[in-house]
């Protein structure tokens, strides 16, 4: 399923922060996690992730460190910062509110 571009843009940062809340990760793994969580329904362009990661890092919501992959390649790992946690919680509440409104709307219209 191709997700509307605006919806993708609106949700991307929250999704990335939510994934990183579960532990440190890196770019490719984050993209794969999104595919896994959505059952393959949400597919990001791989390249759209990196500007988001750089913006979140510049805003102090994630930290980055250079490490190594299993084969010794340089790899950049990201982790969520304490500053991001209340922001993520607030985003979660907002999305749940919007989701609840949508669900009630569809129920009303299909009833």
């Amino acid at each position, binding site marked *: 399923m191709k997700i509307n571009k605006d919806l993708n843009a609106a949700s991307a*940062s*929250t999704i990335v*922060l939510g994934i990183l809340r579960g532990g440190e990760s*890196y*770019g*490719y793994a984050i993209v794969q996690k999104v595919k896994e969580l959505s059952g393959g329904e949400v597919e990001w*362009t*791989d*390249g*759209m992730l*990196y*500007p*988001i990661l*750089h*913006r*979140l*890092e*510049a*805003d102090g*919501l994630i930290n980055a460190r250079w490490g190594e*992959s299993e084969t010794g*390649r*340089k*790899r*950049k790992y990201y982790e969520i910062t304490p500053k991001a946690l209340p*922001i993520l919680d*607030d*985003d979660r509440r907002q999305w749940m509110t919007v989701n609840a409104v949508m669900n009630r709307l569809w129920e009303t219209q299909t009833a």
Partner: protein
Amino acid sequence: MSTPSFSSELSGIPAALAAELEDHLIECYEAGLRSGMSSDEARQSSLRSLGSPSEISQRCLKESDPRDPRRNRLSLQHRVAIGGWLLMAIGFASRVCEASDPTHASIAACIAMSLGALVMGALIRRQRLSMPVAIALSLGLTGIASLAWLQVGWHPWIRETLALTPGALALLAAFGALSGGALTAAPRPAARAA
């Protein structure tokens, strides 16, 4: 399993980002091979899924630009710098007005020196220099220009009235650089990232 090189596609990209994208491309490539693709197919597939590295690089630079108006706000430091510069500029202007016989050229020169430090700070900041380097360059340029003007147009009333000591000039240049940098950063409330 030998990994292909993506250096030609990643040339011209900042080294750190190129390393990050190369790791991503190689992971994609290896996943493609595991799914049964040939080496060429896996390589092309990884490049297609990533998109244009140069566009990604430009967007990353834009997103992490510290001068992004979405991110910048006037900090206490900036407010002090702008306030200090304004006070010094007003101080110079008031001393000029109090002088017994200030010429139009002298008045214009004093105003130009005050504005010069501010403009230099703004221009230097636009070159993406760090604040300490911007202050140092502004100090140097304002100092040199001021000393040259004072040597050429040394009027007795300047020495008596304005007391343009090196320390005062240095403060003017420093405040000008900080103020110029603050104004260039387009102070607006930072948008919450989400």
